[in-house]
Structures are given as structure tokens and as C-alpha cells.
């Protein structure tokens, strides 16, 4: 009798060649695409930041025109938030959530492929604005009335609004996919209190998207209707209110900040126990803290608007809620510290990045707590102090964990370890470069330097901090390049990793590196929160059926389990590769470009093609279950 692997291999193999490249639904290939594409946008947005720093190196330089500067800081923010941070965290989630919960794929593999293609299409759409030199130039939060048709008559804001609606399709479909995957595809025995914290982080991220992103979508729809067709939502003369944009944008925007940080916190929680060689202290409190952050993120949006002139009572409530964020954040930090102190710390590169993250996140959190106080916020609003704070939170709180993730999971993805020495060089360059770039901005901000201005006069005390910041960005850039080089180099000549190079505790370490297309030879039965430590029979990815492993070799299937207790409910047939998700994306791109250029014929043709592609996608071919 053939082994499980020999029977699963032909069923799950996608092969190579163009059809497989276009049609793949393998969550690992899709996750990797998210990572590579997201980091490509990271490079683009990073270069935009470098250009800005060169312009600001000395007073009254003229490297960039004011208009170019406006476009660069707007696109830097939009790209970093929507095309880098969210997709890269989705990429880690895509690759590792099914592996960590013992599933064979995501719940909706074709929707997963669709989400990636739309992300790529929307990223292209937004950046194509540079080609016709009409890139968004009103900042990433795009305030009205500056962004209306009178003050920004070019296509810049239409690229912004339509692009954000378009990428919302990708983010929302991805979020729903994560939620259903985490609720329904967990290996038998993985009850709610055994879910890895990283998976909880992705769940909190996805829930935030589901409830927060519609506010941005509607805000953008209102904006386009007002700009194109003369509707009235934001213009006071027609009964609208420009502050409505701010409310809608920040009702989305603040949760967006947390949804970037939540999976990153989860990433740290995935790494700390492995490198402390002990179970996580306060698992329950960390999970509750993540969920509490998800809830509270919907109650703090007005703290971005303390300088608008809102009623004092509203600001009082929001200020109190903002201070409350300190509680769940602090809970997690103390749980991590306790775990590290009581364990046997191994200072490998992933752990180094996590330590750097904790330090930077605490600094960013301290300046964040300062902003919760209304008078301080009003004194420093729109200054470089804000720029310093948000980069400590977002770069410290999300980029450093991502790099930790690259070093932690790189061996699983590549099958080879990344070089430790290069990793440490990269960390120190990034850590020193980051602080050199952003710490002086606190001082420049307190000395009154406003953000979003393309130059400044001599003799205001801003010269030195700005010069230091510009120097720092090149040090940090060098550190980032070292990691990229390390990755590319290790892909071919790194030391072979084996299944479990770090002695990790979660299920992804029990299967091959890189994992086979079907992930696990048998879908395991989990009896512990740290299954890879407590269940030695799991190693090799093939728990024997006598101990609960389910080979499911009869078809292209995975297991559906109950939401709370993960008891097996049904065998679910999974769809095979399909090109239709990509065709649908192309049709949608046609629609969006038609709308952008007011070519309504093109837009209608694109919409019709979209309906056709959707029918092609859903047409029953007898291979999947009736859905």
C-alpha cells in the first residue's frame, strides 16, 4: 500500500507552467506572493521617504518641487499602510495560519487568489498615477475641502478614492477568508484556548477589517460622487460638512493602525516562547488584550481630531478611552517580559528583532499616551512630534516584528536558514538607523517644525535634528538591504534547516521545510497548546491514525470542525487551481480605469466582463461541493 504522501501528492500537485502560475490556489504560494509584492512596495515607499529626507537635509534645499514633495509624502503614507503593512501581514497569515491550525488550505482558496490579484491590481492602479504625473497629493488622510474638485481638480484624488475602494475589495475578501479559516478549519482538538496567539492576532486583524473598512469605502464613494457628479456630502454650501470626512476616515483610520499592529504583536508572541524555551506566561490575558484592543480601537478615532474644535465632552470620553489602550498594551508587554525572564533566552536574530520591537513600541506608546491628553495634543498636532510617534508605533510595532518573522519563518519557507551574522548586522543597522531617523523628530516637533512642509528656514533650531534624520534613513535603508540580500543568498546557499530548526512549539514545525502542497500527511489531532512540544508523534507531519491523524486521501479535501471545540463535522472538498480570479481582477481593473477616466463605455464593458468572469468562476464543474 502506498504511503499517505504518495497518495496525496498527485491529488494536491499544481504542477508548473503558466496555467499553474496564473491559477494557483495554494495558500503558501499566494502568501509568498503577498510577501514579495508587499516588500516591493516597501522599497518603493522607502525610496519616496529617502527623497523627502534628502530634500529636508539642510534648510531651503530645492531637490524636490513643493508639488513633488506633496505627492511623495501622500503616496509614502498610502503605500506603506495599504500596499505594504496590510498585505505583508496578510502574507504571513496566508502562509502560516493554515499551517499553525493544521489545515490543508484556507477556507476559500480561489477567493484567496482573487485577493492577491486585486491587491496587485490596486497597487498598480494607485502607482500608475505617477506615470501621468497626477499622484495623490493631499496626504494619506486626504482632508476636505482641499481634496474636493475645486481645490484639487486633477485626477490625483480620483486615483486615491477609487484605488482605496479597489484595494478594499482585496482586504475585505482576505479578512472574511481568515475569519472562516480560523473558525472552521482548525485541527480536531484545537479548542479556542489552544489557538496560537499569532492566529488570534490575525483573527483580531480580520475582525477589525470587517467592521472598520466600510467607513473608508463609504467615505471614498461619497467623495467620488461629490467630485464627479456634484453630490453634496462634504461641502457646507450644499448642506454637507467637511468634518464628516474626518469622522469617517478616522473611524476607519484608527482601527487601521491597530490592525497593522495586532498581527505584529501576534508575531512577537509566536517567537518569544520558542526563544525563551518555555510556554507563554499569561496566554489568556494576551488573547483577551488583543480582543480588547480590537474593541477599543472603534472608540478612539476622535483623538485624531482634538484640534478640530469638537465639543469638550466628546473629547473627554475619547481621551479616557485612549488612555485605556495602555492597559491591554501593557498587559502584553509584561507577559512577554515575564516569559523571557523566567525562560532561558536564546538571542538569535528573530529574538533580537523582537527585543528591538518591544523597546521601540514602548517609546511609541509613551508618546501615544501623551497625545491622549487633549492639551498636549493640541500643542503638538501636525508637528514632527506626531511623525516621530507614529513611526515608533508603526515601524517599531509592525516592521520590526515583520523582520523578526522573516528570520523566524524564513527557514520554513525557504528550507534553508538565513545567515545569523548578516541578520545581526541588519538588526543593528536598522535599530540604530531607525532611532537616528526618528528620535530627533521628537525634538524638531517640540521646537515647532510642522510636518508636511517641503522646507524650512535656517536658524530655527531645526537644522541639526533634520540632518541627523536624513543620515539615519540611509543607515536604516542599508540594514533593510542586508536582510533582503541575506534572504536571496540563503535561498540557495543557506544551511539546510530541517523541519524544526528552532525547536518551535506550534504545528508548522512538525511538517517539512518548505511544507508539501498538502501541508500535513495526516491532519493531526491536537491535545495541547504547544502540540509540537507535547506530542512527539506529530513530527514528520504524519500523526498515525491510531493517535488521531486523519489522512483524508480520498480526494482534494480538508476537515470542517466546530467553532469552539474543534470537533470534526464534515469532510469538505476544496477547489482546484483556476484562472478566473485573475480574469475577474483584470475585468475589475478595466472598470476602475473606465471610471477614473470618465470613459463610461469602458467602465460598463468592464462591469459586464466582471459579471462574465464571476459566472465563469462559479459555474459548477462537479469538482467542488455545492456552494
Amino acid at each position: 500500500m502506498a504511503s499517505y504522501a504518495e497518495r496525496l501528492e498527485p491529488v494536491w500537485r499544481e504542477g508548473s507552467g503558466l496555467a499553474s502560475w496564473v491559477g494557483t490556489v495554494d495558500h503558501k504560494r499566494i502568501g509568498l506572493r503577498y510577501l514579495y509584492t508587499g516588500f516591493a512596495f516597501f522599497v518603493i515607499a522607502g525610496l519616496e521617504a529617502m527623497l523627502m529626507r534628502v530634500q529636508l537635509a539642510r534648510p531651503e534645499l530645492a531637490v524636490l518641487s513643493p508639488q513633488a514633495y506633496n505627492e511623495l509624502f501622500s503616496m509614502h503614507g498610502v503605500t506603506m499602510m495599504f500596499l505594504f503593512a496590510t498585505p505583508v501581514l496578510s502574507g504571513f497569515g496566508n502562509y502560516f495560519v493554515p499551517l499553525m491550525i493544521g489545515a490543508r488550505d484556507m477556507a476559500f482558496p480561489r477567493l484567496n487568489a482573487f485577493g492577491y490579484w486585486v491587491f496587485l491590481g490596486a497597487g498598480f492602479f494607485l502607482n500608475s498615477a505617477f506615470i501621468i504625473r497626477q499622484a495623490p497629493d493631499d496626504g494619506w488622510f486626504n482632508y476636505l475641502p482641499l481634496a474636493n474638485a475645486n481645490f484639487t481638480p486633477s485626477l490625483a484624488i480620483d486615483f486615491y478614492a477609487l484605488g482605496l475602494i479597489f484595494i478594499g475589495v482585496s482586504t475585505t475578501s482576505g479578512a472574511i477568508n481568515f475569519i472562516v479559516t480560523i473558525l472552521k478549519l482548525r485541527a480536531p482538538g484545537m479548542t479556542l484556548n489552544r489557538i496560537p496567539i499569532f492566529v488570534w492576532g490575525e483573527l483580531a486583524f480580520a475582525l477589525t477589517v470587517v467592521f472598520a473598512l466600510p467607513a473608508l469605502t463609504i467615505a471614498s464613494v461619497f467623495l467620488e460622487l461629490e467630485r464627479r457628479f456634484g453630490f453634496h456630502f462634504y461641502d457646507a454650501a450644499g448642506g454637507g460638512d467637511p468634518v464628516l470626512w474626518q469622522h469617517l476616515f478616522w473611524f476607519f483610520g484608527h482601527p487601521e493602525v491597530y490592525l497593522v499592529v495586532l498581527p505584529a504583536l501576534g508575531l512577537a508572541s509566536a517567537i518569544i516562547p520558542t526563544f525563551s524555551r518555555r510556554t507563554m506566561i499569561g496566554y489568556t490575558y494576551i488573547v483577551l488584550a488583543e480582543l480588547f484592543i480590537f474593541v477599543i480601537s472603534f472608540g478612539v478615532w476622535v483623538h485624531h481630531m482634538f484640534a478640530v474644535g469638537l465639543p469638550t465632552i466628546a473629547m473627554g470620553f475619547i481621551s479616557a478611552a485612549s488612555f485605556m489602550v495602555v492597559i491591554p498594551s501593557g498587559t502584553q508587554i509584561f507577559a512577554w517580559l515575564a516569559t523571557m525572564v523566567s525562560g532561558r533566552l536564546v538571542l538569535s536574530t528573530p529574538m533580537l528583532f523582537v527585543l528591538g520591537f518591544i523597546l521601540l513600541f514602548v517609546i511609541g506608546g509613551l508618546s501615544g499616551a501623551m497625545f491622549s491628553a487633549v492639551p498636549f495634543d493640541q500643542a503638538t498636532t501636525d508637528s514632527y512630534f506626531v511623525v516621530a510617534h507614529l513611526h515608533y508605533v508603526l515601524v517599531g510595532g509592525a516592521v520590526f516584528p515583520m523582520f523578526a518573522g522573516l528570520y523566524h519563518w524564513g527557514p520554513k519557507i525557504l528550507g534553508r536558514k538565513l545567515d545569523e551574522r548578516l541578520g545581526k548586522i541588519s538588526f543593528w543597522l536598522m535599530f540604530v538607523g531607525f532611532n537616528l531617523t526618528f528620535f530627533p523628530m521628537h525634538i524638531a516637533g517640540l521646537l515647532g517644525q510642522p510636518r508636511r512642509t517641503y522646507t524650512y528656514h535656517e536658524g530655527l533650531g531645526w537644522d541639526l535634528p533634520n540632518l541627523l534624520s536624513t543620515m539615519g534613513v540611509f543607515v536604516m535603508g542599508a540594514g533593510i538591504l542586508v536582510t533582503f540580500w541575506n534572504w536571496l543568498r540563503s535561498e540557495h546557499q543557506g544551511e539546510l534547516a530541517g523541519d524544526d530548526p528552532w525547536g518551535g512549539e506550534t504545528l508548522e514545525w512538525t511538517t517539512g521545510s518548505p511544507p508539501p502542497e498538502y501541508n500535513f500527511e495526516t491532519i493531526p489531532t491536537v491535545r495541547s497548546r504547544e502540540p509540537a512540544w507535547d506530542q512527539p508523534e506529530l513530527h514528520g507531519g504524519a500523526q498515525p491514525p491510531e493517535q488521531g491523524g486523519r489522512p483524508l486521501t480520498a480526494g482534494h479535501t480538508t476537515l470542517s470542525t466546530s467553532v469552539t471545540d474543534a470537533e470534526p463535522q464534515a469532510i469538505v472538498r476544496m477547489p482546484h487551481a483556476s484562472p478566473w480570479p485573475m480574469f475577474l481582477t483584470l475585468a475589475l481593473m478595466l472598470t476602475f480605469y473606465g471610471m477614473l477616466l470618465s470613459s463610461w463605455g469602458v467602465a460598463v464593458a468592464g462591469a459586464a466582463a466582471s459579471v462574465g468572469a464571476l459566472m465563469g468562476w462559479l459555474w459548477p464543474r462537479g469538482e467542488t461541493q455545492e456552494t
Partner: protein
Amino acid sequence: MTVAAHELEPTERLDEVLPSNANGSASFAWWGMVWLIATEAALFGTIIVSYWYLRFRSAPAWPPDGIAKPELVLPLIMSAILWSSSIPVHVADRAGREGDERTLRIGLLIGWVLGAAFLALLLTVEYPEVLREFTPRTNAYGSLFFTLTGLHGLHVAAGLSFSAWVQVRAWRGAFDAQRHVSVQNFAMYWHFVDVVWLFVLLTIYLSPHL
């Protein structure tokens, strides 16, 4: 066909005794629809909150600029038609679970006709009537009126397409007592669109009379 998990010995080949078709809350598609509806509810909620925000930011007169308060007779008739469509859809949903194909087809068809009647009344009677008094370009009130009712109308149209798709497959015999999650998902979506209409009716048509 179905065996509860706790009745199984760990040594049994579970993939041979578990059902090979999932419906309702055992299926992934059903949960996908739940979360699609959740995000759609947030979408409608955002517009409704924007409506109330702009209403309270504007002058005491609402509707503004001398626009008359909305007529209620036709909207209430439309409401009765739309809400009554949930009954045959519910009957069809249950018939689908029991494998009663004939009732399934008839229920879906009646639901489709009622939904189409609602949409036809909106587009051919209600909108022309309203457009004689104001347009989306008149002021924020007009913009909100047409954006909210228009988005709901789009959802009714999407529901009708969804229904047509399910009906074609019902006629081809795609559903039985073991396989009917598409019918369940359509029914869930359709009831959602009907519930949203309650909030649209309260906000757009009834609240200006307060």
C-alpha cells in the same frame, strides 16, 4: 450518514464516516455569508450614521430648502411587498433542507417576483416622482436619499441575480437534502436585504416626519 464525533473511536477511519457534504454552520460557505453580511451591515450603518450626522449639523428644517416631507403611501406598499417576499424564500429554504425540490423552486420563484416588483416600483414610480422635486445634486438631503435607497436597490438587484442563479441550478436538480448550502446562503442574504430595508425606511421615509 452523520455520526457525532464523540461517538467515534480514535482508531476509526474518520474520513469514511463523516458526512462528505457540509451544509449550514458545518460548511465554510455559510460562514462566509455570515461575515459578508456583517461587513455589508457596517457599510449600510456608515451611510445611515452619515445621514443622521448631516441632519443634525444642518438647519432645523429637515428636509431642507423647502422640500416636502416624503410621501409614505407608496414606500409602505413597497415595504409590504419586499417583506412578504421573505416568507416564500423561507419556505423554499426549509424545502431545500428537506429535499422537496418542487416547493423549493416555487418558493424561490415567488420570492423573485415579489423582489422584482419592489425594484420596479422603486425605479419606475418612486424615483420619477421624487426627481420632480429634488435630485442628488440639489443638496445633501437629496444626495443621501438617492445614495442610501440606491445602494439598497443595488442589493435587491444582486439578490435577484443570486436567486436566478440558484433557481437555474434548482431546475437542473443540483440540490437535495444533503446539498443545499447555496439555497441557505441565498435565503440568509435575502432576509438581510429585507432587514436593511427596515432601517432605510425608518431613516429616509419616517424620520423626517418626527
